[in-house]
């Protein structure tokens, strides 16, 4: 039977491979929290989610990209399709899926939730973003909110009745949240009056639910400057007053015209222009940012996933196109009377496709790994197991956020390239995904900030504990690969690369410890790149091991495993060799841009 070929968004076979061959997701069900789950529940959910993504969400992507939200008389009107899409995600149970039964959740491992969500992100990232933001907000309320806040706001976010936002950024406080100026003053009724301006607040208003709750960072009167003076407040667009819901004085001051993510508005919001904006303190005063940071790993994993999903959709589109576009002839054929071949027959096109595959599937591996570590960090059998997972997770997070965003952009550009001139036109989808992808290197901490976080904090954490835990993970993958009969050279090279990175990190750490902080961080961007190459090589070695085991079992399905081994080879032969030069660069103290002064440009 031959069906019209449509973009699968993600490769189901690869998702199963990640969950059940590279690692064994059923092991998670041995953790008491996940005991009610099994491969069967995972499969049924994945099946529903991928169908919703392909049949319902994907067809809405283009219309929502072409008709962005509009601001009319102070209210934002989003694409009417959202009225249909939002309830469907909620009905599927995705809002509270990973949360405890007590708050209406189903205690699903994040690992499974991540791959399931990736389908929806690949299908229509903006539509998913409303949900992602709402569950981030609800999770904060669940973790830190009073019973009243949980009843009033959290439960309505999990049930899909309202949506939520994360309102951190201000015009003068983007990367540097220490400079947040929005103010909060205590009111006699125990709530607070909020005033100030936020910018870029995604989902800050919409017209498909009755209310929006902004989880807002603000500085209480008299609180110290810097991050320690920040508290977290729940600020609804409409607040309860007796039996009624009244306007809460949060005004949409402007709508940002964006190049991507056009299905969800990003807004400038003014709080308390009339002095009547009520907020409720979430958690402890002065711990606003700390509390937000406790959710940071999850939020950054979501961004990384989004980047993988956006690159994946484009990769599959390019793969379909390359098999259907006749152009030119193989290099060995000179005769123009011969029919044209499909461009996938040109080795250079396969180079581009393989690079996309290596980035997308290596990136997915990284995100599944990070989600797995998050599950174990929270629910592991023993404190020792949980602590180790926390180290690995903290270390991996900036990498899992940034690698797919930066390299995903490159993969998205390759999808445009494979489409030739058509890729440059808006009749085809790859240009849209390229626009979308760019955001992922900017929000939730720019790549620059992630590099500083990785080198300045994460690899140094616990006096080397984090790096040690990571090295042990890599070590056990190398062992498995050896046993599976993976090319021993790859195992050696990965071991050597790890050793070099560990040594370099020690040197840079020593520089930092002796007060040469600028020297230490001079090449933080290169260090992040270096660490990404290493971490993705680790993931590719794990996939090569699982593929070799699959081949050894024999039977059908060899093509899939052969493809995995070639993608792994690609990474080991073209990317891993960059470790040496990158290590040298980070060590060299090469200081051209440090010494550049503004007037030299």
């Amino acid at each position, binding site marked *: *039977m031959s*069906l019209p070929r449509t973009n699968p968004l993600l490769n*189901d076979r690869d998702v199963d491979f990640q969950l059940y061959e590279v690692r064994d997701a059923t092991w998670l069900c041995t953790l008491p929290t996940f005991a*009610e789950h099994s491969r*069967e*529940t995972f*499969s*049924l*959910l994945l*099946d*529903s*989610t991928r*169908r*919703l993504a392909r049949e319902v969400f994907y067809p809405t992507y283009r219309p929502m990209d072409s008709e962005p939200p509009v601001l009319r008389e102070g209210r934002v009107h989003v694409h009417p399709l959202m009225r249909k899409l939002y309830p*469907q995600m909620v*009905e*599927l*149970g*995705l809002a509270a*899926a990973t949360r405890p039964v007590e708050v209406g959740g*189903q205690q*699903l491992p994040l690992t499974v939730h991540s791959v399931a969500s990736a389908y929806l992100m690949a299908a229509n990232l903006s539509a998913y973003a409303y949900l992602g933001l709402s569950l981030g907000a609800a999770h904060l309320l669940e973790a830190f909110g009073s019973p009243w806040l949980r009843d009033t706001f959290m439960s309505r976010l999990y049930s899909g009745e309202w949506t939520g936002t994360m309102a951190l950024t201000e015009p003068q406080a983007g990367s540097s949240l220490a400079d947040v100026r929005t103010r909060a003053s205590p009111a006699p009724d125990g709530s607070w009056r909020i005033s100030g301006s936020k910018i870029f607040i995604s989902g800050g208003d919409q017209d498909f639910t009755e209310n929006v709750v902004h989880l807002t960072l603000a500085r209480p009167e008299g609180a110290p400057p810097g991050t320690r003076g920040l508290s977290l407040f729940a600020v609804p667009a409409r607040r309860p007053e007796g039996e009624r819901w009244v306007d809460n004085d949060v005004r949409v001051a402007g709508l940002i015209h964006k190049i991507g993510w056009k299905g969800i508005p990003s807004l400038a919001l003014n709080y308390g222009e009339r002095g009547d904006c009520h907020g409720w303190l979430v958690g402890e005063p002065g711990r606003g940012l700390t509390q937000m940071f406790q959710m940071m790993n999850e939020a950054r994993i979501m961004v990384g996933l989004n980047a993988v999903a956006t690159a994946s959709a484009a990769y599959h589109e390019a793969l379909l196109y390359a098999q259907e576009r006749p152009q030119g002839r193989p290099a060995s054929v000179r005769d123009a009377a011969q029919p044209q071949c499909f461009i996938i027959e040109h080795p250079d096109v396969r180079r581009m496709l393989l690079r996309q595959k290596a980035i997308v599937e290596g990136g997915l591996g990284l995100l599944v790994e990070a989600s797995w570590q998050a599950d174990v960090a929270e629910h592991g059998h023993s404190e020792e197991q949980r602590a180790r997972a926390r180290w690995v997770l903290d270390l991996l997070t900036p990498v899992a956020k940034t690698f797919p965003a930066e390299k995903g952009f490159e993969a998205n550009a390759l999808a445009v390239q494979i489409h030739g001139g058509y890729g440059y036109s808006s009749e085809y989808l790859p240009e849209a995904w390229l626009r979308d992808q760019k955001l992922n290197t900017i929000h939730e901490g720019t790549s620059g900030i992630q590099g500083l976080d990785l080198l300045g904090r994460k690899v140094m954490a616990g006096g080397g504990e984090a790096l040690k835990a990571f090295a042990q993970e890599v070590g056990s993958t190398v062992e498995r690969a050896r046993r599976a009969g993976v090319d021993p050279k790859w195992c050696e090279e990965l071991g050597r690369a790890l050793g070099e990175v560990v040594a370099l990190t020690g040197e840079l750490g020593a520089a930092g410890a002796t007060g040469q902080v600028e020297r230490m961080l001079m090449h933080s961007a290169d260090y992040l790149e270096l660490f990404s190459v290493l971490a993705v090589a680790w993931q590719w070695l794990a996939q090569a091991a699982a593929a070799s085991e699959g081949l050894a079992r024999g*039977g*059908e*399905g060899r093509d899939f495993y052969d493809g995995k081994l070639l993608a792994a080879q690609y990474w080991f032969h073209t990317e891993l060799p960059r470790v040496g030069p990158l290590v040298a660069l980070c060590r060299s103290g090469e200081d051209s841009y440090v010494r550049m002064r503004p007037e030299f440009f």
Partner: protein
Amino acid sequence: MVDVPVSCRSREYPLFKEKDVKILVTAKRVEDPESKIKVKPDGSDIVREGLKYKINPFDEIGVEEGLRLVAKHGGEVVVVSIGGKEVQEQLRHALAMGAQRAVWVNHTGALDQMGVAGLLQKVVEKEKPDLVVLGKQSIDDDQNQVGQYLAEYLGWGQATFASKVESLESEQEKSKTPALQVGADGKTVQVVREVDNGLATLECQLPAVVTTDLRLNLPRYASLPGIMKAKSKPIEELTPEKLGVDVTPKVQVVKLASPPERKAGIKVPDVATLVDKLRNEAKVV
């Protein structure tokens, strides 16, 4: 649209405590059409390794319609599947969609449409549903026979190819109203069916057999809460022996073969050539 009320044969079972309806729906396990299906070189079977399976889409539509009827009238949806233990996956899927119980007829050998209908007949006699809903055909063998056989074996009325009056984009569909209408007295069912020149409306006395067409409804996706609830829903195991049905096939599959590859088309320079080719080569005009 033609409107042909037809009265079907009378029912055997005393029905309807209040307005509850009991609906038996089939959930056959079939290859996912998105898998690459290849015939084995010796033509004995298809290559099964690496294939994905799902509920026959027509049956899934049946489950959905059953759930909607039960939501409206009360009652229960019981799903039934025949096959090895792997068909429990499809039963579990139907339970996750919302069906209340499942019956699994454990049988791994060959089976023809009479065998299937024979087994279903016994399950029906045991379960005594008001309505049996089956897909009009299954997408693996495309037989379109089991519903008709079953109605005959039971001596019940049948309404095949149930469809919707309105389109699948209609308000009706959005509000998930059932297309099958059970009469106010609970004694009949009205079924809109697709016929060559439009739609025909049948009225059948209950109990009856209905088979579903593709344009009956858009089945729901199994939700995570539904999936978790389904874990504790019962699946009753039966066998052809227990049901007392001899399932020795009367139909044998001799050989499977892939359809011949379609040759690439050609471009003709002008309309005259096209007409000439249609007339003289294809001989269709």
